């Protein structure tokens, strides 16, 4: 049978989602061709603000990479814009001269940013915020210019402003209304939002209407109707979007504000459909992702001849994606003569909740500061749930938290079609049948099986409720808190370590067998953890299993995104010498290292090294491994100290070198970074290290559990000591206690919070006998360690099997 030709115009989220639905339905009908104007595969446009804010890389937001098109036999014309549709002869034409016939045609051209028709809007430095290119322009501008103005105080404008703020620009937001996000928030919520953003450094020019964009070639500022003005080197217009309908209009397809579609996403022309931001359904054009996905699901079924309920419009919700500000809004939120509201306004905690009710049905609401209940609230709004005393109590925080019966009742009321996980399009029915058919009992299992709660995690509470509802009495509510190491076992880290000790388990296979792992050889989560625990409990007897280590620890270098590696040799205390630098320079030239970079831990990183060159490079460097790749003691960062510094009260460099030499290579549950500063000015940043030392007159202060990374945390004062020996001992005891009680992957910042600083003080500082034993045990562990680079350089066998490719010969 000849396949029909399906053509999609628009390589964005709405169109591709439709195609994904078609593929899921087992596509046998269609040869698929896609045209996209942007020279990129489909990416997550919503997350552009995260890229701008520095929370994600461009690569991270690609939803379907080039391979995806190839694997699904989809022909993609990226960078080709369709400029004509011949609906009579069923042909599309592009600006690049391609002509493609179709049997069925989907238009998903999305929308274009609305550019205010102001004098000067065409000046350099005036842009919109819509695609990857705009994002790149802003990032580039931030490097050279200082002052940014965003026109538009709506969702998109505020996200752009926050991103520019993160890029160290001075940011002012111009908004025509008195209130920010006035289409999603009432005045109270809006005021709170403004106060919070001002605290973060954003400036606001409200009730201003721009009259002219000033400047010669490049923008220099804005003038407003009231005669005032503001300087600007960059102007971002984020005043709204318009459906992109030119193509449809020129092709005689019915267009109102958007391309007019019926309940099956059909336009007035046969075999031509529209989905997404370019489509208008019952007078509404949607600009958010969830409705687009709902439309795509309906259209896919229609195209595949699968019976489907008609699309009946969507209830939409909005979440502002700005760090430090939690805002949620859905449905109606402005009080009217026929509405009543439940309101909680807690200025002390910065929390505001408002739920609007009409005829005793929940019709909308706003959450600010605490959006934990957003998924539940959204379900109530979608279902127009009746306001009950139970819901009322839970909104006021009077009901017991967690999986109370109130929650279970709510999920029980949902239709199976209801989407629980908006990110991945997983419905209640999908989750319930997975729970029943596959016997799932934890949120993690549901995540692994269905993908629900995998992206943003916002629907976790609902998934938990569904589990509770589906399993009834079997549901172990305590079990939610207790997370197993990985899907291979229900046992927790602590339970596994206890079993290794009590049952004297000494091999990985033995652990898996005795503790009844449900997989034969574990997985990438439990294998490295078990390898660590076995080595920690039996330092002398256990032979490290290289194959259970993550690639970086296996080849003793950091893998990079392109498959090359980086090499960081150890420089004790961050001190080097002309001779060492010369060797590094020679090696870098000889092996054409792509970049030499100074690391945060005061060392040098040689980037872009191919794997087979690693052993030679190590040999020629003649320096030990810096362990920059391992869950182990990494570096001890130091300040200059009393040797040179006029403020230094202690020899911080020597202390750092001594600590690093003593504890280098030590395996720990997660990486350990240390620092020594010679005075409270703290130039080595000891306050945000796993263990940080601060020299004071006549002694040293020891801080623990600090973190400068994901979980930014200030270290707590463990104790104050007088001598070098005491510093080394307290450090050793602390490290060993962390090694013995920390969970694999748990940084000290989390560990200190879990155990409590006072408890750690008692064990490490107060209990002198206990400290002695901890130090004895750490000495045994340290005695086993050798420099891995040297070991590999000397072992031709490992070099061959681990670092060299196989030479095949033809038969």
């Amino acid at each position, binding site marked *: 049978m000849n396949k029909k030709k399906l053509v999609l115009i628009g390589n964005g989220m709405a169109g591709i989602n439709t195609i994904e639905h078609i593929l899921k339905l087992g596509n046998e009908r269609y040869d698929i061709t896609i045209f996209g104007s942007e020279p990129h595969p489909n990416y997550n446009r919503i997350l552009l603000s995260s890229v701008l804010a520095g929370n994600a890389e461009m690569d991270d937001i690609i939803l379907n990479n080039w*391979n995806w098109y190839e*694997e699904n036999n989809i022909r993609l014309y990226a960078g080709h814009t369709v400029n004509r549709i011949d609906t009579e002869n069923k042909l599309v034409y592009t600006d690049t001269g391609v002509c493609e016939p179709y049997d069925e045609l989907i238009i998903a051209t999305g929308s274009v940013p609305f550019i205010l028709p102001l004098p000067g809007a065409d000046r350099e430095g005036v842009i919109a915020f819509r695609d990857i290119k705009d994002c790149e322009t802003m990032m580039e501008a931030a490097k050279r210019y200082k002052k940014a103005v965003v026109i538009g105080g709506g969702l998109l404008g505020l996200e752009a402003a926050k991103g520019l703020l993160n890029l160290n620009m001075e940011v002012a937001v111009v908004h025509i209304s008195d209130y920010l996000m006035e289409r999603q928030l009432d005045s109270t919520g809006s005021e709170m939002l403004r106060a919070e953003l001002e605290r973060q450094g954003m400036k606001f020019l409200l009730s201003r209407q721009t009259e002219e964009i000033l400047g010669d070639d490049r923008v220099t500022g804005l003038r407003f109707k009231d005669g005032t003005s503001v300087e600007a080197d960059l102007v971002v217009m984020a005043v709204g979007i318009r459906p992109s309908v030119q193509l449809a209009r020129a092709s005689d397809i019915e267009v109102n504000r958007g391309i007019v579609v019926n309940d099956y996403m059909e336009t007035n022309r046969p075999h031509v459909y529209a989905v997404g931001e370019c489509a208008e359904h019952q007078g509404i054009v949607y600009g958010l992702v969830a409705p687009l996905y709902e439309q795509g699901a309906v259209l896919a079924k229609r195209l595949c001849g699968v019976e489907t309920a008609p699309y009946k419009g969507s209830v939409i919700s909005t979440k502002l994606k700005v760090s430090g500000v939690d805002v949620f809004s859905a449905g109606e939120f402005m009080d009217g003569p026929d509405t009543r509201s439940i309101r909680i306004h807690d200025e002390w905690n910065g929390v505001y909740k408002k739920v609007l009710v009409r005829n005793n049905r929940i019709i909308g609401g706003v959450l600010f500061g605490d959006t934990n209940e957003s998924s539940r609230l959204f379900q109530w709004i979608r279902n127009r749930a009746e306001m009950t005393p139970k819901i009322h109590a839970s909104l006021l925080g009077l009901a017991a938290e967690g999986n109370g019966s109130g929650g279970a009742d709510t999920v029980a009321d949902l239709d199976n079609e209801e989407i629980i996980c908006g990110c*991945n399009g997983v419905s209640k029915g999908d989750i319930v049948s997975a729970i029943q058919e596959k016997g799932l009992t934890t949120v993690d299992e549901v995540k692994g099986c269905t993908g629900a709660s995998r992206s943003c995690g916002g629907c976790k509470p609902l998934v938990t409720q569904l589990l509770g509802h589906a399993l009834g009495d079997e549901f172990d509510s305590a079990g939610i808190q207790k997370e197993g190491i990985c899907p291979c076992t229900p046992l927790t880290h602590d339970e596994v370590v206890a079993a290794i000790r009590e049952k004297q388990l000494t091999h990985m296979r033995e652990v898996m067998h005795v503790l009844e792992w449900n997989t034969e050889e*574990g997985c990438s989560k439990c294998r490295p953890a078990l390898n660590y625990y076995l080595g920690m409990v039996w330092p002398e007897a256990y032979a490290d299993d290289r194959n259970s280590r*993550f690639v970086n620890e296996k080849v003793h270098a950091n893998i990079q995104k392109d498959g090359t590696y980086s090499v960081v040799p150890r420089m004790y205390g961050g001190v080097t010498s002309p001779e060492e630098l010369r060797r590094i320079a020679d090696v870098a030239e000889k092996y054409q290292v792509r970049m030499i970079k100074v690391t945060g831990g005061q060392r040098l990183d040689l980037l872009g090294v191919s794997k087979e060159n690693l052993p030679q490079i190590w040999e020629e460097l003649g320096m030990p491994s810096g362990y920059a790749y391992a869950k182990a003691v990494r570096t001890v960062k130091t300040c200059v100290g009393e040797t040179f510094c006029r403020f230094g009260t202690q020899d911080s460099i020597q202390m750092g070198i001594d600590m690093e030499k003593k504890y280098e290579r030590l395996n720990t549950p997660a990486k350990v970074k240390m620092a020594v500063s010679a005075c409270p000015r703290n130039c080595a940043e000891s306050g945000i290290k796993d263990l940080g030392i601060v020299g004071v007159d006549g002694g040293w202060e020891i801080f623990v559990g600090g973190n400068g990374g994901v979980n930014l945390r200030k270290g707590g004062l463990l104790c104050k000591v007088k001598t070098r020996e005491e510093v080394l001992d307290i450090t050793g005891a602390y490290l060993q206690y962390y090694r013995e009680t920390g969970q694999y992957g748990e940084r000290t910042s989390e560990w200190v919070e879990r155990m409590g600083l006072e408890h750690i003080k008692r064990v490490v500082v107060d209990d002198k006998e206990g400290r002695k034993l901890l130090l004895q045990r750490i000495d045994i562990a340290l005695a086993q360690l050798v420099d891995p680079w040297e070991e590999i350089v000397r072992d031709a066998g490992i070099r061959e*099997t681990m670092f060299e490719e*196989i030479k095949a010969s033809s038969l």
Partner: protein
Amino acid sequence: MKRYRIGPIESLPVQTGRVVYIENREIAVFRLSNGEVQAVENRCPHKGGPLAEGIVSGNYVFCPLHDRKINLKDGLVQKPDIGCVRTYPVELIEGTVILGIPVKEAAISG
């Protein structure tokens, strides 16, 4: 099918992968704990991660870049992710590992 001699089975360490280049293809060859040898394209369909460097468990490998789990027998990426990698037939003859490349394809890429 064009056949290539990879070498003695001992040249492949158990539970890990090694890379071989044949006709401009980069192929990862794995010796599993049960003695079987499997070969797949050394490129994760997600972001091109080098699969030979991944942790091998049973007949699965976990991509070292973003932990996609891939069945080495049929090349299928495991749920909830999707995609697949090309697999290549492997024979074990008297302790020697032989890898096959389909001829038609060999001609195209060569």
